Each structure stands twice: as C-alpha cells, then as structure tokens.
C-alpha cells in the first residue's frame, strides 16, 4: 500500500532535550490524522520536520512513496502554520496570488485557482479587501486557502482553529472535509477534541516527544478507558460513606461509578446512592470520550 506520508523512527533533540523520540506514523491518501498532545509534546516539531524546517537526527520521511531528503522538493506538501502567515497589507486575492506563485502555480492557472480558493474559503465577497482588516475567522480561512491553493497531496495544519468563533470553526472543518473528499491527506494538530471525535480517521497522541497511543477513536477508547459508561452523581453534601464500586472525586460531593453491565448496573447504583441519605443535585451517564482517553494517557497536570 502506498501511503501519502510515512514517518519512520523520527528523533530530534536540542542539546540534551529530546523533542521527538522514535516517532512513526502512516497516513493513507484521503485520510485525516490528528496529532494530540499537551503543549510542548512535540506536535509542531513533527510537522515542521515533515515540512523540512527541522532536520531530524534520526528517522526518515516518505512523501507519496518517495523518500525525502532534508532539503528535498516538498511541493506535494501544503503547510498551514498556526500564526496568520499572510500579508495583512495585501488583499485576500493578492495573498492567494503570491502564495500560489511561491508554490509554483503557473500564471495561466493562477487566476482560476485563486477564484476557486476564494469561493472555497467563502471570501469571494471580500476578495479585494486588505487581509489585515479581516476578522479572526476570515484570516484563518485565508490562511488555509493560501496553503492549499496548489492542490497538495498532503496538507499539514497546525492548530487551524485557534481563536475563532464556533461558526468559523465549523466552516474550517467543513473545508477540511472537502479537502479530504478530494483525496487530500491531512495532518492536523488541534485541541478541539469534539471535532476530532467527529471527523478524524486516525488519532495519534504524543507526549514528551513520544507516541503514547495511535489508532481510531474506538481503538483508543478500547485500549485506554474502555467502553463502559460512567454514572456521575453530584450530592448536596459530603457523604458519610462511599458506596461499593463508587469513587469519590476531589470535590468531595461527586461520586462516579463504571456501568459495566449497562442498565442493570445503573438501577443498582441509583439504589445505593439513595441509601446515603443525601439529596442528589445532578445525575448523568457518560459515554467514554476522547477527552477521557487524552487525560488518561497524558495525565491531568499542566505542562506549560
């Protein structure tokens, strides 16, 4: 099978600090792979190394079946950095023209591609306005459009939805869906876990430069937190005792219990709570989420 992108044994250190440790991943064409990890985990370094901006100490990268040298041709790649890497004092159209030319789009095709990109990013009405005057969401969309104007086979997006409203975020993920539908392979770093759950084919969790888990959402859930639902009960006061199979959360009033037997466990659990003599303020049943997987794999402590 030919992958759009393969990373094998990628390692990188700055002095004694290892930022990538033997990272490997495969990305088939038309798939969306999300890199998850706390801040400083090595996600951006991995993306920059794929772009050729970081020279790996070890490991290799293959693009469309072709091994990439550190300074080799990466024209089948599209890169969308986390910052607004556009010229604020150029119009949206001019930005697209400029980056189209940088990516080798011929002058003959440029106008067509720019119009297409403007329509795709819903910026056609503001095509001749300065990018610096755009809202955050519009800048994000233009930022993405500039990175994919040349129809790359693989697009790397570093947190493309930071600081945008829900509507813009939704539109950005729709744009990514459209790209994927065209057969473009995408690597994405984001902290929007709900979107990842909905749209991603593969999830790779990185922590401290190492891949700690990889697979589909179901695979990750099975491998980490399991498929059991969880009962969460918030009481009005601290209970005198903790019932069997329950756990008391740090706030002292929230009890949790895994429901491995489904509804049968639920009825038993509720009966046990009633025996505590406390008033139930809130009760919910949660299914396993990516957030739970993420916290399970990387811990809850801050990494900044």
């Amino acid at each position: 099978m030919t992958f759009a992108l393969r990373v094998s044994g990628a390692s990188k250190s700055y002095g004694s600090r290892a930022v990538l440790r033997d990272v490997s991943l495969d990305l088939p064409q038309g798939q969306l792979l999300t890199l998850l990890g706390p801040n400083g985990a090595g996600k951006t370094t991995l993306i920059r190394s794929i772009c050729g901006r970081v020279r790996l100490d070890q490991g290799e990268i293959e693009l469309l079946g072709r091994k990439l040298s550190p300074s080799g041709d990466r024209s089948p790649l599209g890169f969308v950095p986390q910052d607004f890497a556009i010229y604020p004092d150029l119009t949206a159209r001019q930005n697209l023209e400029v980056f189209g030319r940088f990516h080798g789009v011929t002058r003959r095709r440029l106008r067509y591609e720019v119009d297409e990109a403007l329509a795709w990013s819903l910026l056609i009405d503001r095509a001749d306005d300065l990018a610096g005057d755009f809202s955050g969401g519009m800048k994000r969309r233009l930022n993405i459009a500039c990175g994919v104007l040349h129809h790359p086979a693989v697009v790397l997006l570093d947190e493309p939805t930071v600081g945008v409203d829900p509507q813009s975020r939704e539109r950005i993920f729709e744009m990514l869906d459209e790209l994927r539908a065209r057969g473009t392979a995408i690597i994405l770093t984001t902290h929007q876990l709900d979107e990842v759950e909905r749209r991603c084919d593969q999830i790779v969790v990185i922590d401290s430069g190492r891949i700690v888990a990889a697979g589909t959402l179901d695979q990750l859930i099975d491998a980490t937190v399991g498929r059991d639902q969880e009962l969460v009960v918030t009481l009005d006061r601290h209970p005198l005792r903790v019932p069997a199979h329950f756990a008391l959360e740090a706030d002292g009033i929230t009890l949790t219990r895994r429901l491995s037997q489904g509804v049968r466990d639920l009825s038993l659990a509720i009966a046990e709570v009633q025996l505590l003599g406390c008033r139930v303020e809130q009760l919910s049943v949660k299914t396993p989420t990516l957030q739970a997987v993420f916290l399970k794999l990387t811990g809850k402590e801050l990494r900044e």
Partner: protein
Amino acid sequence: MTFTVIRVQLLKLWNSKPQLLLTFFVPVLFFSIFALIFGKGLKGSAPGSLKIAIVDEDQTDLSRAVIADLAQDEALVVRTIGGAKIGSEASSDDKEAEQTVPLEQAEEWIRSAGIVVAVQIPAGFEAAEDDAPEGRVRLLADLSDQIAPRLVAAEVQRSVGRHRVEAVIARARAAAILRRLLARSPRDDQPVRDDANGDASNTPQSGPPNESESAGSPPQSPFDGPVFPPWYVVPGQSTGGDANDLTTALGSVVSPEAEQAGAVSQVGEAQVDTIDFFGGSKQNPIVAMYAAGIAVMFLLFSANNAGEALLIEQETGTLERMLTSRLGLNRMMLGKWLWMLLLGTTQTTVMFLWAQAVFQVDLWGHLEGFAVMTLATSAASASFALFLATLCRTRSQLQAVSVVLILSMSALGGSMVPRYVMSDELQSVGLATFNAWALDGFNKVFWRDLPISSLGPQVGVLAGVTLILGLTARLLARRWEQD
C-alpha cells in the same frame, strides 16, 4: 495609581534593552560625533588639513615671500610636482622654487581632488597698479569645500599686506639714507627734502617733491622718483594723495596710532579673486551634492525598512511558510535584495529628477555617471540592510542597531555635514562608511564632471561592500534554513 503608571513605563523601558539604548546611548553618541566634527576636529584648525598648490607667474621677491609664508602655515600643505608636501621646514629659495607649479598642473590637481585651492600670482603682480588685473591674486578653488578658499584667501591677503608694508618701509629707509648721502655730497646743493627719522628741521612738504625741478628739468638722481609703489594708497585718503610725502606716509604706516586704527592692514592689501573652478558654468551646482547626501541617507533608511519586513515575516510565520514552498532561501533573499535595489534606484532617481526640475541640477548631462553611482550605492545599501536584518533577532534590535549605524554612517560619511569641514582624521574615519564613497562618486560626477572611468575606486569599494555584506547576510540567514 499614577505612580503605578510610571512604574509600568519604567519596567517596559528597563525590559527593552534596545529601547534603553536608543534613549540614553544614541543621544550621547551623536553629541560626541558632532562635537568631534565641530569641535577640535574642524578642518582648518588642524595642522596640514588644507592642500593647496601655488602658481607663481610673477617670480618676484614679493611672490616668493608670499609663497614662503604659505608654505610655513601649519594649516596648509603645498603640493609640488615631485609629490613632496612642503611644510614649515621649507624656507630656502630652492624649495620655494619647487613649490610653484604650472597652471595646467594645478588645474589638473583640482579636477582630481588632489588639492582644494590653487593660488595663482600673476606676472607683474608686484609692480602692478592697485586696480590692474595683474595686481589681483587668483584663487582657483573647488567650492564644494566652502571653507578652504576663505582660509587661503585670508592667509594670502595677510601675507601680501605684510610684505608690501615691509617693502614700503625698506624703500623709504633706503631712500632716506641715500638722500642724506646725496645731501652731504659737495656738488649737491639741493636741500634735504625728507628724512625717514622725521627730523623736525626738515619739515615735510606737501605735494610732489622738488616741484621746481620736476617742472623744468629731469630728476638728477634715481631717488628723486616716487618713493612708494603705485599700488600704495595713503591711509585715510581716497586717492593716492601725495604718496611721496614720505614722512606723512611713513608716519601713517608705522606709528602706533596708525596701527591701532588699522592702517597697517590697509597698506598694500592684496585683492584676491576666488574663482569657482567647477561651478562657473553650472546652475546651482552645490545642490547636486546635497541631493546625493540626502539620497544616500534615505536610501539606507528605506533599505532598512525593507529589511525589517524580513523580520516581520519571520515573526508572523510568513517566512516559514515561504521557505516550505518552492521559493527557498536563496531565491527569497535574492528577491529581497533586488527589491531593495529597485527601490533605492527609483528613490534616488526621483530625488534627482526633482532636483533637476526645481533646483536645475543637471541630471541629463550626467546620466551615465548618475546611473553607475546610483546602482552601486543602492546595491550596497541593499546588502547592508539584508546584513542588519539577518544579524538582528528581533525588530526592536534591528531598530536600535540600524538607527545607531545609519545615523553614525551618515554623520561621518558626509550625508549630514560635508566631509570637507571635518579634520583629516575624521575624514579618514568617514571612509569606513560607504556613504563617503558614494558621495565622493556623486561628487565626481556632478561636481567635477569626471568621466565614468574615474569612478573606479568608488564603484569598487561599493561593489566590495555589496558582496561582503550580501554574503555575510546569506551566512547569517542560515539560521532560518533548518533547525
């Protein structure tokens, strides 16, 4: 709360070292530079700072005496054909003779900036009437230096005046002595007419001496003629008056009262004509030099702004994006450099077009030289800006470094203050800036009307600067290539 506002500003200033540098270091630096330029370093006050040549067509005692004076003036260096710079040690007749050069040679030296002034003492100068053309010293001057001709003119006037007064006194004394001798002669029955020592018994006469004789018979001795040379004007009289009224005249010359009244300085004062060697046929020629000075300084600022764009691109991630495209670092830097070159060339051209339209600077007449110098200067500026942009890590660093460097280079290189007012030492320091070379080149083109071939040193230095700074910038930019 007001104190907190002040504290915030103080902390911001303290945390921004470049800003701190701009606030406290730069003013001190510029004060020092201008103190050096206008203080002890001012040209003319330093020994050997003015280079001149002397064209002695008179070859008389007076002209030789003037040459000796000029040669002994510590501020002047008299250039000779042999190349020797004759200074205060030159006093013998031989050396004085060597100090004069043909007029053509002096003109050539002015044209090639070897000297700033040529002193031409015309034939017949010593014997000339006051208002005769040959009685006027000519200074062929490169008026791009507006100070040197005035200093040399003052020195010439002082020297000629002094020697003429000495000549008057010497002739008067000689005449008095001889007349006294003649008066004692047995066959001389004429009364003594005058006495330099002012003997009261020999009352000075007014009017021509020995009127009775001069009216009817020729003088009987060579000393019966005028005592004073024709240029001499008796102080206090609009016309010559009775120049042969020896006692009156000498008294006016040598008495302390007369000296106090400034009479000595009036006696024999030389008429000096300063001739604009280059600008005579030009309209508003000095403006071309100032246009070049301002153009070079703003060329640096513009190029620096363009270089700053590189750091902005780095900070916004645009540079990273460009470098992941097909563009690559080499083409990106070449593009930046070419843009700065284009911008600088256009900017300088616009300035000179304006100078031509409004100030009658002859741009079309010097188009080739202008093109060569503009391209060379813009290229050097572009490399300089790229060098600074790649040297600095942040925009605030660049701002601080560029302000210090550009203003220092402009001050020392002649963009702000003409280099001719600076001492030789400061002028030498100025050559470390490419402003100085650029301005010298524009000067050759617009002021000296020299051919393009004469621009070799200037273009060579600017091309060297372009190459060295450009390559250094490329090396420094390696930090952007890959981590």
